[in-house]
C-alpha cells in the first residue's frame, strides 16, 4: 500500500473525497481555543525545502504542529547541500535522526518520487512541490475551496466536483499547480479548460484530461471558477510573450472580464499574485477572489494528509500508481 503523496494523479476519487472530508473536520480545529490535536504526538516530520517557499513551508509547519508532531525545518540554503551534499545523503542523514515523514520541496521534477522509490529512506514522503511536475496538496486545497464555495461546506461532505467547470489560466507549461489541478479536478469529475498563449502550453498536452483554449473571453461565461496562475515576468525575456502589457491584455483578469463570469463563479489564485500581470488589484481584492481562503484551507488540507498518511499503523489513502513494482 502506498505510503507517500507524490502526485495528484495517484489519488482515486474516494481517496480525494476522504481527504477533503477529513480536512473539513480539521478546519474546525482552527475555531477552537486550543488549536491542537494530540494525534501525531511522538512522530517527527522534517520539512526538507531545497527551494525557498515560505508560504508552503509555514502552512505545512502549522499543520504538523496542530497535530502535535515534532517538526524539523531544513532549508537547503546555507546547509551542507549547497556544499555539494546529495539529496540521498541529506535524506539519509535526516532519517538517521529518526524521521517518520519527509515533506519535500525541490526544484527538480521527480525528486520526491526518487526519494520515495529509490530505497534511500523508509520515511513517508509528501511532495510539497517538485520542479514543474506536481504540487498535490495545492490541488487538494484548491479542490477543497471549490467544493466549499460551489457545493457547500456541509452539503459538500462525501461529494466530488461532478459537472463543475473550472478554467485554469496562465503559465501552464511551467506550472506544477496546473498539472496537479488537471489531474485531481478530473478525478473529482470536474471539466477543466486550460487557457494560455500557445507558447505556455506544453507539447503533449493533448494527452491531458482537459480542454485547451487560447481565448479567455469565450470561456469565461461558461465556468464556475477561474483559477489564475502566476506568470513570472522573466518569461517575457525567453520570448514566451511579447510584453507584459500584451499578456495582461489578452490573458489577465480585470474587472471587465470578471463581470463576464456567471454570478456564482469564483476567482482563485494559488499565490503569490503578480498584481497588474495576471490579475488586477480590483479583482484580487474583490469578494469573489478566494486567494486568502485558499491559504487558510491549505493548513486544513495538510493536516488531513498528514493524519491520513501518518495517523495510523498504515496509510488510509489507497492510491497505487506512483510506487515502482
Amino acid at each position, binding site marked *: 500500500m502506498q505510503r507517500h503523496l507524490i502526485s495528484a494523479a495517484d489519488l482515486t476519487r474516494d481517496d480525494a473525497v476522504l481527504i477533503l472530508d477529513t480536512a473539513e473536520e480539521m478546519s474546525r480545529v482552527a475555531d477552537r481555543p486550543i488549536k491542537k490535536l494530540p494525534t501525531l504526538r511522538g512522530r517527527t516530520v522534517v520539512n526538507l525545502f531545497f527551494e525557498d517557499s515560505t508560504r508552503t513551508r509555514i502552512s505545512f509547519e502549522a499543520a504538523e504542529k496542530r497535530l502535535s508532531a515534532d517538526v524539523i525545518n531544513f532549508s537547503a540554503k546555507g546547509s551542507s547541500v549547497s556544499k555539494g551534499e546529495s539529496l540521498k545523503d541529506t535524506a539519509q542523514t535526516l532519517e538517521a535522526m529518526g524521521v517518520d515523514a519527509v515533506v519535500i520541496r525541490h526544484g527538480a*521534477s521527480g525528486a520526491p518520487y526518487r526519494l520515495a522509490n529509490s530505497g534511500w529512506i523508509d520515511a513517508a514522503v509528501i511532495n510539497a512541490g517538485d520542479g514543474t*511536475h506536481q504540487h498535490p496538496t495545492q490541488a487538494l486545497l484548491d479542490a477543497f475551496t471549490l467544493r466549499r464555495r460551489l457545493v457547500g461546506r456541509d452539503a459538500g461532505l462525501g461529494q466530488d466536483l461532478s459537472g463543475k467547470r473550472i478554467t485554469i489560466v496562465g503559465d501552464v507549461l511551467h506550472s506544477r499547480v496546473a*498539472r496537479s489541478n488537471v489531474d485531481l479536478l478530473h478525478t473529482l469529475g470536474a471539466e477543466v479548460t486550460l487557457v494560455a498563449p500557445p507558447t505556455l502550453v506544453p507539447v*503533449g498536452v493533448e494527452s*491531458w484530461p482537459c480542454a485547451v483554449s487560447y481565448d479567455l473571453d469565450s470561456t469565461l461565461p461558461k465556468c464556475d471558477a477561474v483559477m489564475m496562475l502566476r506568470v513570472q515576468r522573466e518569461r517575457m525575456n525567453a520570448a514566451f510573450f511579447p510584453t507584459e502589457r500584451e499578456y495582461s491584455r489578452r490573458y489577465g483578469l480585470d474587472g471587465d472580464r470578471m463581470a463576464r463570469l456567471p454570478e456564482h463563479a469564483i476567482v482563485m489564485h494559488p499565490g503569490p499574485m503578480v498584481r497588474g500581470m495576471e490579475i488586477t488589484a480590483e479583482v484580487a481584492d474583490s469578494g469573489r477572489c478566494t486567494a486568502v481562503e485558499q491559504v487558510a484551507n491549505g493548513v486544513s488540507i495538510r493536516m488531513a494528509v498528514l493524519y491520513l498518511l501518518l495517523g495510523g499503523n498504515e496509510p488510509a489513502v489507497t492510491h497505487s500508481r506512483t510506487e515502482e513494482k
Partner: protein
Amino acid sequence: MSKILIRGAKVLGGEPQDVLIDGETIAEVGTDLSAEGAEVVEAAGKVLLPGLVDLHTHLREPGREDSETVLTGTRAAASGGYTAVFAMANTFPVADTAGVVEQVWRLGREHGYCDVRPIGAVTVGLEGKKLAELGAMHESAAGVTVFSDDGKCVDDAVIMRRALEYVKAFDGVVAQHAQEPRLTEGAQMNEGVVSAELGLGGWPAVAEESIIARDVLLAEHVGSRVHICHLSTAGSVEIVRWAKSRGIRVTAEVTPHHLLLTDELVRTYNPVYKVNPPLRTERDVMALREALADGTIDIVATDHAPHPHEDKDCEWAAAAMGMVGLETALSVVQETMVDTGLLDWAGVADRMSVKPARIGQATGHGRPVSAGEPANLTLVDTAYRGPVDPARFASRSRNTPYEGRELPGRVTHTWLRGKATLVDGKLT
C-alpha cells in the same frame, strides 16, 4: 603464435564451418579441417562474426579515470565482442591535439584488448569556435580520420562547413552530434506526452532533425561526407533517407538503446534512463529499426558512456547523461533486429563491423571471414538468454538501463589478430 581451430561455427549465421587461425590471420575456412597442432574451440551452434567495431565509445581517459580507463573500456569492448573502438574526444584535456590522441592510441596498443582509434575534436576544447589542428591529428601516430565534438553539437554553420571541407584533404569524416543548442536549453527528456506529464524540460525531435537537415545540405554543397551520430527520431530517418536518395554522402548510426527503449521508462525518474539524445517514442524506435534494416541507417554504435554511481544515484535533473553499452550491444541488436526477423547475422556483421570499419577507415577490421584475412573474430552463443548482471561487467561503470532485463545472446570468444581476448566469456 599457435594455431586455433574454431570447429563447426555458423559463419555469419550460415552453414557450420571450421575456421583455422594461424598466427594473426585466418589460414583456412572449410569443413572437416584438421585439428593437428591446433587448440580446438568447439563452436557448434554458435555464430561467428568478424570482430565488432564501435564508432562511438567514451573511454574517459584522460581525465575521468573514475568512470572508465582505456584498459577497463577495452576490456569491456572485448567482452562485448569488439576488436576496435573509436574513442570520443570529450576527455579532460579534450582530444584536440596530436599529443592527446597519441596518448590514447598508445594506451590501447599497450593493453592489447582491442584496437583503439582516437576521434579528434573538431573544435578547440569542443567549444565550437575555432577549428582544432585536424591535420596534425591525422598525421600523428594515431592517424585520426574521424572528427567529432560529440557531447556538443558543432552548431555554428560556418565552422561546420569549414570542418567538412577541410577534412576532405585527407579523406576524413566529421561525425556530428546533432543537437540544436537553443532548442535544448534545460532539456531533460524527449518532448512529448511524457515530458508534459512529468514536468521535465522537453528535448524536441526538431532540435536533432534541423541540424541533420542543415548538415546534409552543407555536405552536398561542399561535396564532403558527413556522419550523423546516434540518430534517434523517425524524422531524422526521413531526412537521411532523402539525403541518400539525392546522392549526398551521409552515413548514420543508431545506438542499441534507441532500438529498444522508449521515453515511457522516464516515468520512473530513474536516471539510468537519462541519455543524450533522449529516449524517444515507440514510433521512433520502430522507424529506427526499419531504417537500420533497410540500410538508411548504416551502423550500430554504442555511445558507451560510463558514469560513476553517484552521478546516477540522485534526482533526474542532477544526473549525468549516458549509458554503458559495449557489453550489451550485440544482445540488444539480437533482441531488436535478429529475433524480430528484421536482420540476419550477415546483416548484423555488416552494421556492427563491416560498415563502421569502412566509415572510420579501421584497416584490418570488418573484413570477410575468409582465408588470408586478419583474425579479428567474435563467437556468439545466440541460443543463450538471461538477465543482465552489471556486477559482471568489465567496465568500471555500471550505469546500464538493462539491469535484470532478460536479453538473448552472449559473446563467448573474441580474437584480436589471432590472440584470444575473451575465452568462454572470460577475459584473458
